[in-house]
């Protein structure tokens, strides 16, 4: 192993066919921890809108939240693969944790590469231990898939930035400690696109910032908010990377985000298939377990096949990323396959439960939102296809 200039542990790009002993131990340890809480814990917090604090703290204390953060900042110094394993196991036990995508996944990937020395020292240890949580504010009413259209502006006033504008669908702001903010600091005269800059908002309760909840179909502990910035003042050192070049750090958060979104889906798919197997082998309707019918078996088998195909791509994308190789195509493909496989497995499991599929007691239908979400946010399935069409196939840009 060597440390790359980027500070990431560089590994060779290999993917073992069998899980290593370390992976087995990591999976079973995390799985045991989550198993103590179970899906009812997730459900209860989804209802109350409180974070899964006890689980989060236990994972943090055991060092499982900061696996992708360099050791010098209190992290595990491992990689995205290990972090993704943790999140997949959480999801496979019915406790998918969106906060990990945002905090460790996005902020935890961007800051080691683009943060100043002070920012790294200030924020990374908190991300690694889980004591401080980041969320991420990019989307605006007129800037979703097209982030170049961001209109929330940051203007220098003396040595402070003054932020004005609106963000929406921002997850978890009510329970975060800090957040990353993308704002426009200028316009590229040639293209008309915004020159974007990435900021850290240290205090989510800062003066001039209002938030309003947006009710959504997502049943998760994280709530979504519209954020109104009315003259919020940020210090000059809140900028991450260079002024006007915010897309660069942003892009370094994208692949981890794709992989982590994907493992939420593969994890929930595993959870759903486990549930379906347990249920259909015990439930009898015509004198034999319903699992004896091909109409029940085959859809589950298909879901299992699609799940394993998706997982193959997920771990490949993670391994490439950890080896410092270009991983954009694989990460997008992984997210595409996993979001479909997750939805299919969950939907099939719901169907095979009959009426119970919709009952809270069986803990399936409430996971629909978090899996379905992965086809919309942070990039939609269509934008993934645009990426593959353009970059993998070399087709003309269509939008």
């Amino acid at each position, binding site marked *: 192993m060597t440390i790359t200039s980027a500070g990431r542990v560089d590994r060779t790009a290999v993917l073992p066919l069998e899980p290593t002993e370390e992976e087995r131990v990591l999976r079973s340890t995390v799985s045991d921890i989550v198993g103590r809480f179970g899906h009812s814990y997730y459900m209860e917090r989804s209802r109350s809108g409180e974070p899964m604090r006890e689980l989060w703290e236990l994972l943090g204390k055991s060092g499982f939240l900061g696996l992708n953060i360099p050791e010098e900042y209190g992290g595990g110094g491992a990689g995205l693969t290990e972090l993704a394993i943790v999140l997949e196991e959480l999801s496979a036990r019915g406790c998918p944790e969106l906060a990990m995508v945002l905090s460790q996944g996005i902020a935890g990937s961007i800051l080691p590469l683009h943060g100043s020395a002070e920012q790294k020292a200030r924020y990374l240890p908190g991300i690694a231990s889980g004591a401080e949580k980041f969320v991420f504010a990019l989307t605006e009413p007129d800037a979703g898939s097209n982030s170049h259209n961001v209109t929330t502006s940051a203007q220098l006033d003396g040595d402070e930035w003054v932020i004005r504008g609106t963000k929406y669908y921002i997850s978890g702001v009510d329970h975060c400690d800090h957040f990353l903010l993308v704002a426009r600091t200028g316009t590229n005269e040639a293209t008309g696109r915004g020159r974007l800059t990435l900021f850290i908002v240290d205090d989510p309760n800062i003066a001039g910032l209002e938030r309003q909840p947006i009710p959504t179909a997502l049943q998760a502990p994280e709530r979504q908010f519209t954020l109104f910035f009315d003259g919020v003042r940020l210090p000059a050192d809140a900028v991450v990377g260079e002024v006007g070049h915010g897309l660069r750090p942003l892009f370094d958060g994208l692949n981890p985000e794709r992989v982590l979104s994907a493992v939420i889906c593969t994890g929930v798919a595993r959870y759903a298939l486990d549930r379906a197997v347990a249920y259909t082998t015990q439930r009898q309707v015509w004198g034999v377990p319903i699992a004896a019918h*091909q*109409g029940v078996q085959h859809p589950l088998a298909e879901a299992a096949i699609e799940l394993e195909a998706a997982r193959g791509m997920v771990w490949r994308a993670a391994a490439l990323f950890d080896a410092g190789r270009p991983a954009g195509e694989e990460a997008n493909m992984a997210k595409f396959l996993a979001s479909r496989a997750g939805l299919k497995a969950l939907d099939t499991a719901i169907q095979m439960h009959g009426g119970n599929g919709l009952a809270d007691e069986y803990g399936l239908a409430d996971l629909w939102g978090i899996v379905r979400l992965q086809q919309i946010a942070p990039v939609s399935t269509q934008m993934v296809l645009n990426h593959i069409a353009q970059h993998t196939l070399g087709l003309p840009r*269509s939008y």
Partner: protein
Amino acid sequence: MSDVPSLLYTDVEDDLRAAVRSMLESHSPWARVLERTDGDVAGDRKLWTLLTDDLGLAGLALGEDVGGAGASWREVAVVLEELGRAVCDVPYLTSVVTATALAEAVGARELLAELATGAVAAVAVPFTQPLDHPVSDPPRFAAGRIRGRVPAVAGAAEADVLLVPVAGAVVRVAAADARIEPVPSLDMTRRVADIDFGAEGGAAATVLAERDAVPAALARAAAVSAALLASEQLGLAQRCLEMTVEYVGQRRQFGRLIGSYQALKHRLADLWTAIAQARAVARYAAACAAVDDKDLPVAASLAQAVCSVVAQQAAEECVQLHGGIGFTWEHPAHLYLKRARADALAHGTAGWHRRRVGALVDLPPVAD
């Protein structure tokens, strides 16, 4: 359509179907169709004579004033269902539907009278091309002569008369005056041929329609063709389903009829529902063509968008669920699969028609 017509089959249509089916069972069993695919002759002349002379099916949709039977495209659609069902090699779609619709649209009464008696005509446009979609290099017409080539025309080798769209006109050419060269094609139950009118002197041609009358006539013939082709696809799909149901009801594996496995039952049930939808859109398209409803363009493209896909699905399921035997020459499945595949390209692909439906229902155009 303001009042949606009944999409059910009338008694008259049922009787017509029974007469055609019985004729085809005697004179066009699939073994004969298969055998003919190895021969050199495009179109089963003997069968054509039986259909046109004995059953009088050539002028079915034509008025009695030109010697037709005074029925409508609805009845023609029923005949096409039966012809599709038996993958017959007769130029019915190309002559009785496409050429007749064009002749009718340009008011070529003399030609219509010939068609009503069983003369065979073909419109010289590549089979895969919607008639109202401009071809890249159409034949040129000047001073009573036509020059140039048209590739891959279905029903041309069987034709007595060719109707040729040229710039600003539709002209009539005697098939004998053109060089018609059959080319091998996937579906040998409906062959295609290249037409060459010659480069130098060309061939003699008479004008049937000119200028402003041309686009509307081509559009009408295109819509009728697309609408009616759907019935052929429907009949084909229906037959594939029947053959397959019959087979899974007698074939045993693991000590059971394979049709008792849910995996196969459900697939066939899915196919049944797809065919029910195909029937609805095909019947609606035929009904719109019959009364020249203003919904015809939408109905025709919708029918193609659906039926092209369903016919292929049915033929593919037929091959798959027959196992190895479905893959052999001695089983008709391949005839259906090839016809379904060729039909899916004919008069515009499903994708082309989906796009057209989009334009017709005012969806924003796709960026090119």
